């Protein structure tokens, strides 16, 4: 375990290296945090500018039939669309930390608009995320236990195949098997009075449709990272010492593989979030996918920018966690 090195240092009763290491870690994390936040702001600026460059705007897209040019101009003024784009971006960005996501083209507060569907989407995404990580770790280590064995080859082939499948194709397959042929699950999500899915079984198919491709991706990463570790001297030594395969894998190979696994899993957050939008459409699940589809039709910049901001912020947090894991593992080793 990587912990043994740290343990020896502290028992030597010299606090300086430990303190220095903690300060170094904190400084590194602060730098990483600053970089991640800067990238987030850059992305939001690019998105804002991109929507701005498009022909037409929210005022004309939401105009009623027969509404005169004067009416559209009045609403444009009301929505603040006549002000320079950088000024609006600055105002929107500074209001963001207070939870104010702006006002939609139809005059609703974006935070109200997202408050009901966003938790549903997060529930769907996080369930799929947890399942994916568990399944990928299990399959990846199982395959790595016997390199080039039957299990390894089957896992390699199926995970490669699975990760190329678009979520909606997996969803169609699940619908046919679990809903049409066996009748075990309803084909569409039934929503309760409070706007959430009526039962946990409504989540089964959307979650599975998201999990299958991402598990394919992450299994390959776990398997690859373990293969890299298997080639390192300390793992080879552990194996030559005659330790059981399971112990070599879990105690000696896996700790060194964490940074690579964390980065891979972090990458799949974005793909999961994107997949939710698609899967929600197919299963009629009450998440942000529906809101987003309406917002695209309305050219509703604040709504789309808010969804992009939410998902980008979430991905930033996951990437930061991956950075943390990497810093810890490498920091202890250094």
């Amino acid at each position: 375990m990587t912990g043994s090195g740290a343990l020896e240092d502290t028992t030597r009763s010299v606090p300086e290296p430990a303190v220095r290491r903690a300060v170094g870690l904190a400084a590194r994390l602060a730098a990483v945090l600053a970089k991640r936040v800067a990238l987030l702001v850059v992305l939001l600026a690019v998105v804002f500018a991109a929507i701005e460059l498009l022909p037409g705007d929210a005022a004309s897209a939401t105009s009623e039939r027969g509404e005169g040019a004067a009416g559209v101009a009045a609403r444009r003024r009301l929505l603040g669309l006549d002000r320079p784009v950088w000024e609006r971006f600055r105002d929107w960005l500074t209001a963001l930390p207070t939870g104010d996501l702006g006002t939609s083209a139809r005059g609703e507060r974006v935070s109200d608009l997202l408050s009901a569907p966003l938790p549903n989407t997060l529930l769907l995404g996080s369930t799929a995320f947890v399942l994916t990580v568990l399944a990928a770790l299990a399959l990846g280590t199982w395959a790595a236990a016997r390199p080039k064995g039957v299990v390894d080859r089957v896992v390699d082939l199926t995970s490669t195949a699975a990760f190329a499948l678009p979520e909606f194709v997996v969803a169609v397959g699940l619908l046919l098997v679990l809903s049409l042929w066996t009748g075990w699950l309803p084909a569409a999500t039934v929503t309760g009075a409070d706007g959430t899915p009526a039962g946990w079984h409504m989540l089964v198919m959307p979650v599975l449709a998201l999990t299958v491709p991402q598990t394919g991706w992450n299994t390959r990463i776990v398997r690859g990272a373990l293969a890299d570790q298997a080639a390192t001297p300390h793992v080879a030594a552990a194996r030559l010492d005659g330790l059981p395969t399971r112990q070599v894998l879990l105690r000696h190979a896996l700790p060194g593989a964490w940074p690579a696994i964390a980065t891979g899993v972090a990458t799949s957050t974005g793909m999961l979030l994107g997949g939710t939008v698609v899967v929600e459409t197919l299963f009629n699940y009450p998440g942000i996918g529906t809101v987003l589809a309406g917002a695209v039709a309305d050219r509703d910049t604040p709504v789309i920018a808010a969804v992009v901001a939410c998902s980008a912020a979430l991905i930033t947090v996951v990437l930061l966690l991956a950075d943390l894991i990497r810093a810890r593992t490498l920091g202890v080793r250094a």
Partner: protein
Amino acid sequence: MSTTAKAARPRTRRPRPRALVPAVPALLLVLLALTGPLLAAHPVDRPVTAPYGEAGTGGAPLGGDQLGRDVLSRLLHGGSALIGSALAVAAVVTFLATLLGCFAVLGPRLGRLVERAADTAILLPSVLGIMLLALAWPGGGRLAVSAAAVVLGTPYAVRIVAGAAAPLAATGFVEAATASGERLAHLALREILPNLRATVLALFGLRFVDAVYVIAMAGFLQLGPRPPEADWALMIRENGPGILLNPWAVLAPGLAIGLLAVGVNLAANALAPATVRRAALR
């Protein structure tokens, strides 16, 4: 397709006929999809049976879709545009990435810019990216989706090329050329590029897989091709409500996309050198 033909060239690695086997299903499927329109019995836009008509009625072996049009004929027509645009996207992304990647390893400033661009792009899920571009370009259809796929895919691809080119930039022959005062373009295109053949071909395969995924997803979200068109992803979306009446209208295009994605991915994976595969996973 050209990946399968070229990647096994003896210069890049020893020719191993067995390595080509995984590429066969993908190749057959692509050929079938491209020649499909010639084999279709009915036009894509004329009803031949009842809406969601059962398989076998009205001369439609897979039944009818939501307007009673022949599912099999639409299936045979629906693949070529998807594959065509995916191939085009893969080619453009690979070309851009190769150029930028070669220059990025020689110029630290461009290299840093590329890194930052890839770090930023990872924060934008591709579905949201496609939606933004479809918004920006309302009548763009397939072209807008292809443009989005290029914009979203290039940053990662550049990173892969740069990763493979970095060791080359430090080799003796490049340093010798630098010392003899060669211009940057000469260094990138004459000294580094010729040694990246295997990476570039493998990259093309991987970008093709990604492009199929992105373009199919856009079709499903009704952001790309417009309704009378027979697009596999669009067929799934349109016939979803009738899945109980004629499952084939959804199942057949679903299978087609699934087989295409999996087949192409297995082929690209089998033909790609291990180092590129590793880099693509990062």
